[in-house]
């Protein structure tokens, strides 16, 4: 505000301006210019005169309202005349004119001696009164605004001590930082470790994520408080981050940027030629404290059955290896078909351990193995080629592993046809071998001739019947080895599922109905959700099969189709379960088993995860009961601990010829089962794709 001295002209100008503003009280007064600095200065001196004038107008209005226009006080016209003159002196033409007109109207009313003629005259006076009130209301309002502004102008000139200072803002800095990696806590607290591109200072961006995928935080969008937008972490970590006047705190030489109210970082892409800031090489020794970093670490990763080690120059390092990192490192070893590998890591010290921010390989470049589950995936072609090169003693074991690999897709028809032919030439012995052989065939679309399993199933059902004798000859055929004795009958534990599954696969359920019914009502009668998964699956299948006739008469037509027209309509299944039908009871039994495998909402303990083959059976049964065609590979993903399932698969493949490991039957069967279990859990693309 300026401090121009008020002059009489300025005062008059202000009043005229206010009057002009209030000229048309009943329309929107657009385009009226606000008072300028001179007006404000004039207002300081002229306020009292205008106030006084307005007060007298109010008094006139009061008199009119109380006395009424038909009988106005005789002195009103002269009072109005005086006010009009005052308005003229104050340069208020609208007020002057309105007051003058009102004076004339009231004088006309008073001059009319006939009382019955006064109402018509007073109508005009009423209109003028209302115009005056409307003018006054807006003039007063404008006057108040000007008064406030003039007061502020005076205060701004320093005519008053300033009040206490408001909150001090944090210092702010601008910098471009190169993200080194992240640390993401389960609650969504995210730390992005960075390095300033100019000063090489360490910067940490503290963020809080919402709506992110805890199992794959780098994929999809997450709502970021720091960036104040929904962003993809993956692309963000591949470019620079620019912070402009962002509030900052410093501790221990590290600059912390937190979510700010008025500043947001921006992601900036980098050119291919961009050279990231160099990081120091960290040295780790058992006797020295954990280095803070971040820095580089040339580590060696090594795998042995059930163990993954990270060492530096042969010595162990306090490196935190969470499940996802372990899975990724195992995948890397699997892809490279080796048990040991040097790896460049970028790590940061947190507490008494080092955490991996990123890892670099020649093939993959910079990766974030602690948070990205999609890394180091083995190609399906490579997997099949490695298995094809294996020369195991047990052809069925190799075929099982190959079938599992084929079930992941990507193989040509000729390749599949040749494999099916090789499979048909195999001659498995015993129930379990037949099951594995048929399972492998089912995965590649091979038919199971009933004649190849009927005698075996008759033997098995006879042995599994209530009160049956353990006939050694039958037992030998079922167990697949010569010279079995009745003492070996205990080995029939877990045989129910292969029997049921083979009966279904060979379309022998109707033919074997008496034996299967006896199995359900005898050996499986006491099976509940807490029983071994294999038996639970067998009981669920039999409950569904024997309670509801098969539709279509083929082994691949699932009972679920009889109940749900839409494969994805789970509500239909739930409704059926609620009805208590055979299928509903079967599904309820399976759901009980799955629930017992899943930790409770309060983190309560779950029962141990069944072995991979049982997981395959569980997934297979669940898919069958939901009406899915297993041969198309549309298995229902199981809500099972994904980390454990995929870790098992990675370890199993590492221990097999697929990972440069042994080619013994156990390793191959383990690899086959683990791959199929992984597929059943919907996790296969993270390992082989």
């Amino acid at each position, binding site marked *: 505000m300026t401090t121009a001295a008020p002059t009489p002209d300025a005062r008059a100008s202000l009043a005229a301006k206010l009057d002009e503003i209030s000229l048309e009280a009943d329309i929107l007064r657009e385009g009226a210019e606000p008072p300028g600095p001179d007006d404000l200065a004039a207002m300081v001196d002229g306020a009292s005169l205008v106030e006084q004038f307005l007060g007298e107008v109010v008094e006139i209005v009061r008199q009119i*309202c*109380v006395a009424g226009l038909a009988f106005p006080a005789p002195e009103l016209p002269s009072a109005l005349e005086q006010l009009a003159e005052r308005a003229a002196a104050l340069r208020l033409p609208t007020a002057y004119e309105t007051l003058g007109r009102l004076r004339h109207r009231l004088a006309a009313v008073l001059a009319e001696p006939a009382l019955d003629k006064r109402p018509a005259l007073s109508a005009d006076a009423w209109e003028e009164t209302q115009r005056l009130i409307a003018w006054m209301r807006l003039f007063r309002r404008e006057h108040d605004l000007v*008064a406030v502004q003039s007061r502020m102008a005076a205060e701004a000139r320093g005519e008053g001590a300033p009040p*206490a200072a*408001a909150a001090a803002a944090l210092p702010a800095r601008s910098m471009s930082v190169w993200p080194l990696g992240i640390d993401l806590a389960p609650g969504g607290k995210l730390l992005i470790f960075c390095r300033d591109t100019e000063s090489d200072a360490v910067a940490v961006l503290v963020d809080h994520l919402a709506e992110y995928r805890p199992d794959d935080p780098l994929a999809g969008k997450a709502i970021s408080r720091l960036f104040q937008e929904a962003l993809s972490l993956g692309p963000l970590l591949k470019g620079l981050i620019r912070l402009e006047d962002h509030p900052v705190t410093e501790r221990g030489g590290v600059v912390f940027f937190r979510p700010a109210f008025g500043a947001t970082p921006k992601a900036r892409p980098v050119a291919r030629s961009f050279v990231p800031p160099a990081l120091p090489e960290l040295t780790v020794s058992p006797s020295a404290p954990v280095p803070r970093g971040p820095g580089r670490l040339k580590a060696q990763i090594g795998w042995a059955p059930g163990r993954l080690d990270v060492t530096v120059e042969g010595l162990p390092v306090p490196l935190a290896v969470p499940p996802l990192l372990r899975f990724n490192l195992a995948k890397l070893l699997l892809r490279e078909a080796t048990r040991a590998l040097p790896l460049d890591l970028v790590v940061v010290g947190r507490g008494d351990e080092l955490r991996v921010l990123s890892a670099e390989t020649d093939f993959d470049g910079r990766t974030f193995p602690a948070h990205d589950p999609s890394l180091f995936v083995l190609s399906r072609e490579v997997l099949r080629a490695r298995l094809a090169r294996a020369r195991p003693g047990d052809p069925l074991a190799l075929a099982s592993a190959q079938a599992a690999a084929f079930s992941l897709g990507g193989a040509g028809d000729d390749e599949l046809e040749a494999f099916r032919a090789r499979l048909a030439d195999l001659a498995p012995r015993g129930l379990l071998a037949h099951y594995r052989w048929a399972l492998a065939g089912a995965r590649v679309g091979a038919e199971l001739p009933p004649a190849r399993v009927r005698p075996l199933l008759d033997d098995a059902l006879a042995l599994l019947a209530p009160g049956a004798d353990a006939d050694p000859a039958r037992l030998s055929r079922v167990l697949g080895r010569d010279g079995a004795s009745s003492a070996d009958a205990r080995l029939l534990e877990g045989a129910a599922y292969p029997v049921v599954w083979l009966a279904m696969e060979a379309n022998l359920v109707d033919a074997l109905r008496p034996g299967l019914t006896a199995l359900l009502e005898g050996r499986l009668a006491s099976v509940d959700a807490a029983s071994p998964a294999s038996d639970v699956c067998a009981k669920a299948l039999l409950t569904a099969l024997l309670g509801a006739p098969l539709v279509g008469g083929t082994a691949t037509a699932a009972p679920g189709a009889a109940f749900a027209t839409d494969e994805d309509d789970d509500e239909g299944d739930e409704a059926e379960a609620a009805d208590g039908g055979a299928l509903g009871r079967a599904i309820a039994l399976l759901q009980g088993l799955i629930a017992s495998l899943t930790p409770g909402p309060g983190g309560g303990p779950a029962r141990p995860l069944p072995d991979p083959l049982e997981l395959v059976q569980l997934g297979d049964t669940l898919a069958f009961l939901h009406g899915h065609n297993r041969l198309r590979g549309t298995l229902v993903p199981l809500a099972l601990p994904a980390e454990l399932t995929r870790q098992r698969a990675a370890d199993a493949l590492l221990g097999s010829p697929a990972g440069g490991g042994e080619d013994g039957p156990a390793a191959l069967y383990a690899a086959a089962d683990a791959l199929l279990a992984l597929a059943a859990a919907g996790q296969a693309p993270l390992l082989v794709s």
Partner: protein
Amino acid sequence: MAANEGGEAGEGEAEAGEGAEAGGGAGAGKALGKRDRDKLERMAEAFDKIDRLLLRLAQQGLQRMSASSLDELRALEQIAHHAALVAIERQIETLATHVRRYLERDPLFTIADYAGTVNKIWLLGRAARRRHEAGQSPDEMLDVIGEARRSYAEVGHPLVLQPLGATGWVTDTDFVGITVYFYVEGRPELTCQASNCKPCAYFGRDPKKLLDSPISDHVAHRIFDVAHGAFEFRKAKMSGDGRLSLHKELVVSKAPYLGAKAYASLAVRDWAALVDRLREGELHPVGRGDDALAYVEPAGYGPVVTDEKNARATCEVADARGATLQIEVPLRAENNLLLDNLEKLFGSARAAEVARDPKRARAFSPPGKKLAPNALFGRASVSGGRLKFFPFTGLYQQPLVYAKGRTQQRRVNEVHYSLEPLSQFTAAES
């Protein structure tokens, strides 16, 4: 937004109407239903009746009014109601209250209020009559004639809303509630609001107790959540005056918090700009726009001065140039928490002490400096020659940690002073 879409459609129709029938309004240019035609007919009759009665009352003056004048006003209210002149109907109701107070020698009666109400009826009547004569349909005249009940129209796209502030209130008719004001992403000129209102008989008279309840029976998110984070509202419905309907089909999900960006269009650093904004808003003939929502960034604060005599508490807030506005809070029970919070932030002084030593109102050390806000969101107005401000929410550049009980902990950038005790907030570690 729904209201504006309707408005745009109306303008389009008006142009079409003018093309079809020179000089005619939209109503004249298109076929009106019988209901609207009847309404317009009743309106024409009502204008004359309203003018006649007001003139008669003006002619006889207040001193000749009687109980029959009241009866006449009530009958006129009915006439305005049937003619869909809702705004006029409400003003006639107010006028009847003034007349009743005059007749009962009620000390609350003032000539200024009486004359002002008559003037508003006169202004509204003239404006509505002009629109009517121009051939506008009742729907096109809603801004003048008003609506009996607020209507909500579905917004055709998802709305991303960030709370600007929230305030608790208790009405004279015994309802307690919370209103949350929202910034609408992409529509900086629009401030919309959502309210949760409950009867005091069941919920008491303390608005902060509603903070943990859902924003409506159909939306699971708590009022606290919605008042502290950005959300996307799908299938949103909004009224012409920016009120959000919390209806059954509404789908609410989290959205990125926008921080200071949400306040950009409401932000003022110097109070002169705030006065200019108030001036822009006061152009309506019947008194709307006397106040304005604003985001102010003070340079300093004075202590809270309690004036028991006038039942109000005030606090001087200075801008960077030293100009002051006055926070003014009436001493009412529902404002107790707000005043407690302000006193914690800025300290307190008695009016009498300040009268003895005016410097006391300006020079002191605020006790709650750590929690002093960087900005305030609230409602500004001018009265008594002062710029007044009623604060809803304090805004903080650095988030505060809100803790309730042992489990609920959250970082927030805003404190709603009439709903949240400052004792539940601590400055986040640096």
